[in-house]
């Protein structure tokens, strides 16, 4: 199987595990009546914004690999640097947002209320499951593919690391949004 398919499978598996773990974290209540308007909270808007920015940056990084091929992307300094910078941008945006949200919780300001803080506190439950599934898919795929060769090319390790980082970083806002869906 090609590197692109393994990357897609690993990320899909990771996000699938995130979704499943978040669903299991709390049972859903009955749906609200149709005439009840449900306004978004600031935490929901921040989470949607974070997922959107991460998706755009991750799509740009994936496009680089798709257009140039995996080996050419990693063997060409400019392409490898661009790929890395795009993923580092996700790390900076999502990591910075997470640190800022934690500061809001500790400061006890008016941005988050008690329900927001409860949902934010429960959201990381899904992150570990997502990372483990992503890693497991990579390990099975790489072990099967390179069993005879006895060695894994370095750029696969690069992809394993960054796919786990992306699942971890995006896992928090995904967990938050699913938390709100569970009331």
């Amino acid at each position, binding site marked *: 199987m090609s590197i692109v398919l393994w990357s897609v499978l690993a990320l899909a598996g990771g996000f699938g595990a995130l979704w499943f773990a978040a669903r299991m974290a709390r049972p859903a*209540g009955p749906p*609200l*009546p149709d005439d*009840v*308007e*449900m*306004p*978004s*909270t*600031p935490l929901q808007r921040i989470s949607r914004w974070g997922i959107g920015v991460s998706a755009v940056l991750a799509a740009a990084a994936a496009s680089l690999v798709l257009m140039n091929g995996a080996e050419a992307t990693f063997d060409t300094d400019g392409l490898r640097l661009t790929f890395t910078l795009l993923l580092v941008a996700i790390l900076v945006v999502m990591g910075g947002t997470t640190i800022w949200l934690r500061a809001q919780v500790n400061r006890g300001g*008016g941005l988050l*209320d*008690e*329900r*927001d803080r409860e949902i934010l506190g429960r959201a990381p439950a899904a992150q570990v499951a997502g990372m483990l599934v992503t890693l497991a898919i990579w390990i099975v795929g790489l072990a099967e593919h390179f069993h005879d060769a006895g060695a894994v090319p370095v750029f696969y390790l690069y992809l394993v690391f960054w796919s786990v980082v992306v699942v971890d970083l995006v896992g928090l806002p995904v967990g938050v949004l699913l938390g*709100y869906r569970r*009331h």
Partner: protein
Amino acid sequence: MPKAEISNRIRRLRFEHGEMTQQELSERAGCSRQTVVLLEQGRYVPSLSLAMKIARIFGTDVESVFELAEDDG
């Protein structure tokens, strides 16, 4: 173990207090409007401090706003 349900009169109290909006109540209580919506729908049980803040906004005690109903079934 008996199952405890907590109901509340927030919606009625809002209208009895000059048709106070959900937005105004949320700002005065220090919570989001979404939390007020869920409280009124009986989908969220507030902390003691939020319950006391809401009761104070309506100028009454907590038990006049929130009611504990025990169901032995």
